[in-house]
C-alpha cells in the first residue's frame, strides 16, 4: 500500500531526480490523484522559495579585516 505518508517522504527525492522505476510510478500516480499531497508538495516549494530569501549573516568587521589584511600582504610580496 502506497499512502500519503510514503508520498510526503519521497518529495525531495523526486525533486532531485533520485526516484526511478516502480517507486517513481507509484509516487506520481499517488500525487496525481491526492489533493492533500499536492498541497503538501506545493507548500514545500513555497517553503523553499522563502528559504532562498532569508538574508545572509553579516561578516563581523574583525573577520573581514583580518582576512583582507592577509590578502594585501600576500599581494604586496
Amino acid at each position, binding site marked *: 500500500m502506497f*499512502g500519503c505518508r510514503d508520498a510526503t517522504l519521497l518529495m525531495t*527525492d523526486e525533486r532531485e531526480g533520485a526516484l526511478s522505476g516502480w517507486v517513481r510510478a507509484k509516487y506520481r500516480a499517488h500525487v496525481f490523484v491526492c489533493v*492533500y499531497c499536492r498541497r*503538501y508538495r506545493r507548500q514545500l516549494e513555497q517553503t*523553499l522559495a*522563502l*528559504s532562498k530569501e532569508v538574508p545572509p549573516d553579516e561578516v563581523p568587521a574583525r573577520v573581514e579585516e583580518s582576512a583582507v589584511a592577509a*590578502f594585501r600582504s600576500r599581494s604586496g610580496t
Partner: protein
Amino acid sequence: VTVDPGQGDADLVRRLRAGDEAAFRDLVRRMHRPLMKLGTMWVGSPAVAEEVVQETWLAVVAQIDRFEERSSLRTWIGSILVNRAKTRGARDKRSVPFSSLSTEDAEVVEPERFGKGGFWRQPPAKWDDAPDALTLRKEAREAIEKELEAFPPAQRTVVVLRDLEEWSSVEVCNVLEISETNQRVLLHRGRMRLRAALERYHRGGKV
C-alpha cells in the same frame, strides 16, 4: 569524489591570484554564513567557529596558488574550514556531528498526522496564497530562521547550504563527506520541519 567545477570560478580565481581586493572581500562576505554553519557543527560555539573562519581565510590566502580547480572554489574553501574545525573539535573533545546520523529513510516529521494505511488524518491546512505582502514575507522568513536555530547542527548545515545558499548537492556532499542519500534525508527532514513551522505561522499561532 565527484568533480564539481563551480560556474565562473576560473575568472574569480584569476582575479584573486592577481590580488583583486574587491573580489576577495566579496568572497569573504558571501562565504561567511556557509563557513560559520560548517564550523559550528564541529566546534559548537559560534565564537570558536569565528576563529576557525579567520584561520581559514589565512590558509586560503596562502594556498590560492595551489588550488587546482578540481572542485568548486567554495567547496575547496569549505573543506579547508572543515578540516580545521574537525581538528579543533577533536582537541576540545566535542562529539562528531554525524555519529547519530541515521542512514535509514527519512522519518515523518509529524507522524500523528497520518492514520491507517498512511493516509492523511490531519491534512495540510490551506495557506493563504498571498504571503506577497512584504511584512508577511518578512515574518515568514523570520519563522524559518527561528526554526533553523532549533535544528540539529548537521541538518541545519545541509538546509542552509542547499536552500539558503543554493549550493549543489555535489558541493554539499563533498564538503561534508556524506553520501547523496544521507544528504537528501537531512535535507528532506529539514524542509518538512520548516514547512510545519510555516504552517503554524499561517494558522496564526506562535512560531
